[in-house]
């Protein structure tokens, strides 16, 4: 019987500059591929990480993205030092955005980021404190493994 899978790593994301935005998501995509995670889950996690990274770059001073991979799920936690979200329910609504013109010219800031994260995650929670920052935890479940525990570690 193979060892159960466990991988965890945190990445720093610098706020304010689009220079390296997407770099962390690219790295995470590579790590998941190397771990043998199925294509569909890799894709969903990569999209979630990328939108998270864009959010940190667009709004916060700095932040971290923590990736945890087990046989059953991939967990993505993001924590930033930013302005915080005044009304989370409103922020989740597609089309609502407080993004700057610079962010919009990049093709983001149309109020779809959080909605996309929610769309691709099986589970998402957000907590936020004004003037302090925002924490988001998202889970992408490997249902195949949960329903069929006898299958090899991660199936394609």
């Amino acid at each position, binding site marked *: 019987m193979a060892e159960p899978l466990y991988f965890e790593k945190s990445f720093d994301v610098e706020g304010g500059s689009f220079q390296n935005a997407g770099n962390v998501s*690219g790295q995470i995509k590579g790590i998941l591929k190397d771990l043998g995670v199925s294509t569909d889950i890799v894709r969903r996690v990569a999209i979630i990480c990328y939108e998270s990274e864009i959010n940190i770059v667009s709004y916060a001073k700095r932040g971290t993205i923590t990736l945890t991979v087990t046989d059953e799920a991939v967990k993505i936690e993001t924590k930033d030092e930013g302005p915080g979200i005044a009304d989370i329910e409103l922020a989740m609504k597609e089309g609502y955005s407080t993004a700057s013109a610079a962010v919009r010219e990049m093709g983001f800031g149309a109020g779809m980021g959080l909605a996309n994260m929610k769309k691709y995650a099986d589970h998402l929670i957000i907590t936020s404190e004004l003037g302090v920052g925002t924490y988001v935890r998202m889970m992408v479940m490997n249902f195949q493994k949960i329903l069929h525990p006898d299958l090899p570690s991660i199936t394609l």
Partner: protein
Amino acid sequence: MTLKDVKEILEAEVLVGSDQLEKPAKTAFAADLMSDVLAFAKPDSLLLTGLTNPQVVRTADILDITAIIMVRGKKPSEETIKLAEELKIPILSTRYILFETSGRLHARGVTGCIEKVGGET
């Protein structure tokens, strides 16, 4: 259809990936909002866009896009080109607007990479 055909139909210039012109190109997604692309585009499609910044390349990489078609003759920055070379994502530049680019490819048999929105993830 291959990228080579796309190049001819759009009278496009290949900025990155001239060694990848044999790649098949059957489906496409057209948008300027990268979040829209992230929400709906499927792997192995062409991404047609009016944007030229490095985030377009990042988005294409995240989604396993076949190639980026930049419209309106806009040329990407050196930084965008470098990233695309590094990630091996072809970039073609056409002088047609997004409407004309989409219309020409569609008329030659390229289809949308999703039928319509709703239900799919």
